[in-house]
């Protein structure tokens, strides 16, 4: 984590997810075909052959049912040069994205052409498919196109299509994630083992954490106030169900903790007590991680645990539920 000439905290963030989708009858045939080094188009209502085959006819909106194999060679209709390929694009060295019209097809489709330089690209040039070494059941089984006059010999032996019914698209996005000014003040204090609240200048409510805007008044919270690390459990739930990424063995308690002097509770863990002994109104205290392990996050507080003091009276926290 760095704070390069910036008033707010920044952190790199990578989000990843494998989207798993059923392909349906049309794309299933298309992608199964690619795995066998065969490009399959769909016959449209006007007789044209479209690659990739659409699920539905663009004119009549009827389901496309008739498939027709086309060649894996064709010509470039238009192209643009990618001088600096981005992550996960078909090639990791400079290449062209192109619309390619395969022989036997009537509509062009998008793919990469590995031509080496923009000087080697031209509209109308002949290209042929380069197939992936190992099919994985995606459009990437057609790795890219290459100039058809290349010295390499064509690899056009069509295999027996399998049956690919599910497609997985891995999505990985990287961000520079920035906190708001209010969150940044809060995060920096947390690293020092302090909790800073801020009041809404209009309604005077004390927010922990502070916010870019009070949801009642729409103005940023201001005037940092040092808060105690003690408070009460307002409401809670016992987590019994395992889920992906769970860090604590169930059952455990996830609770809203209202710090003494705060008007807004936040979610945290209650440990150091049997889950079934946690009560509304129970007094708790923050258990901090050792200083060496602290970052700018709420995780600096490992959890809250009971102080052993008498429970708060219901009337004192009723309006915070």
């Amino acid at each position, binding site marked *: 984590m760095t704070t390069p000439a910036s008033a707010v905290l920044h952190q790199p963030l990578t989000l990843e997810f494998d989207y798993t989708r059923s392909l349906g009858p049309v794309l299933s045939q298309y992608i199964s075909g690619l795995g066998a080094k065969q490009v399959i188009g769909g016959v449209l209502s006007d007789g044209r052959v479209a690659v*990739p085959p659409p699920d539905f006819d*663009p004119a009549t909106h009827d389901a496309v049912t008739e498939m027709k194999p086309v060649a894996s060679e064709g010509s470039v209709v238009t192209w*643009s040069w990618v001088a600096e390929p*981005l992550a996960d694009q078909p090639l990791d060295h400079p290449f062209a994205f192109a619309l390619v019209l395969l022989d036997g097809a009537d509509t062009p*489709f998008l793919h990469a052409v590995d031509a080496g330089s923009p000087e080697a690209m031209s509209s109308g040039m002949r290209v042929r498919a380069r197939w992936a070494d190992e099919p994985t059941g995606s459009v990437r089984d057609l790795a890219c196109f290459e100039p058809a006059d290349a010295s390499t010999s064509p690899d056009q032996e069509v295999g027996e299509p399998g049956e690919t019914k599910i497609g997985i698209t891995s999505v990985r996005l990287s961000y520079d994630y920035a906190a*708001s000014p209010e969150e940044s003040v809060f995060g920096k204090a947390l690293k020092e083992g302090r909790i800073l609240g801020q009041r809404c200048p209009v309604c005077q409510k004390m927010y922990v954490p502070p916010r870019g805007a*009070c949801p009642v008044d729409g103005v940023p919270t201001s005037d940092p106030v040092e808060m105690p690390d003690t408070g009460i459990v307002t409401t809670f739930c016992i987590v019994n169900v395992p889920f992906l990424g769970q860090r604590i063995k169930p059952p455990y308690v996830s609770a809203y903790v209202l710090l003494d002097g705060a008007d807004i509770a936040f979610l945290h863990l209650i440990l150091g007590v049997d889950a079934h002994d946690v009560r509304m109104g129970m007094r708790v205290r923050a258990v901090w991680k050792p200083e060496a392990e602290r970052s700018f996050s709420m995780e600096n507080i490992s959890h809250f645990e009971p102080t052993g003091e008498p429970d708060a009276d219901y009337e004192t926290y009723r309006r915070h539920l």
Partner: protein
Amino acid sequence: MRDVAVVGFAQRQMRRFDGSSNTIELLVPILQELWEQTGWTKDDIGFWCSGSSDYLAGRSFSFVTAIDALGAVPPISESHVEMDGAWALYEAWLKIQTGEADSALVYGFGKSSASTLRRTLALQLDPYTLTPLWPDTVSLAGLQARLGIEQGVWDEKAMAEVAARSRTSGADNEYAVRGAATSVDDVLAQPLFADPLRKWDCAPITDGAAAIVIAATDRLPEKCTRPAVISGIAHNVDSPSLGLRDLTRSPSAAAAASAAGGTDGVQVAELHAPFSHQELILRRELGLGEDVDVNPSGGALASNPMFCAGLIRIGEAARRIWDGDADRTLGHATSGVALQQNLVCVMEAQA
């Protein structure tokens, strides 16, 4: 139909916004500015609608956290589109047509700089056949530009004229991130960035937020003396399949203009064209002649905050009517790849 007018507009645009990906720090002063413009408070707003994207923000429900800026307690009537704020305005216009609201505040926000924008936008493509190739928006626009050049529909000089005029106009727009007196030769002297495109053919990466207040004409704020009355608003979409489209045309833009009542008499048009050649396509499809003042703000080539650049076009076009510069103006917004989806909003001064 109920007559509805654009009565308030505020914006913030910048190259890099150093703050939250929901831009709440920008939305708070934008709303303050709108209250000053209209003399209204949040209690005068009957409906709220926003346009934004979680993929861009890198956080889930980013539009929900942005609602804090509105002061949404007690509860408000609110909606969201995962599109440019111009489509949020369309939803709000419909809401007023239904009679469920008399006024609305619409906004859009995008922190384009949080990730690699042209790569993140691959998520708007067909997830089966296109996203796995991670085609970036600049490359896709390049395919479209070359088709037009090689078919003789436009040429590099015409593209450079658009880029030069946009940069020059941007210099007079305090919110634009790109602006300087620029000639066609200056543009053509630039190196190719994504052959056949130069960087100045492509919209700059821009962060920002914008908001507009619309109201039924029988419920206008007293401070609004010359409202921009919406005479027609419509949006249409073309096929998501690149191969099934003639990329040198945009039938959806033509259809939207027609459904919005045509463009006769339009004096100023603010077109959302993130690439220079796309302005040429839009002028043709919208039937805009040489006498129309196109993008006096500099347009998207001067500044293009995602999810509000289209809304800003409507605001800029409305402002020309408020100021008395024009009696009939047009705001346009686009979405999707290579002008796939288009919205046209025609506004006029009240007779």
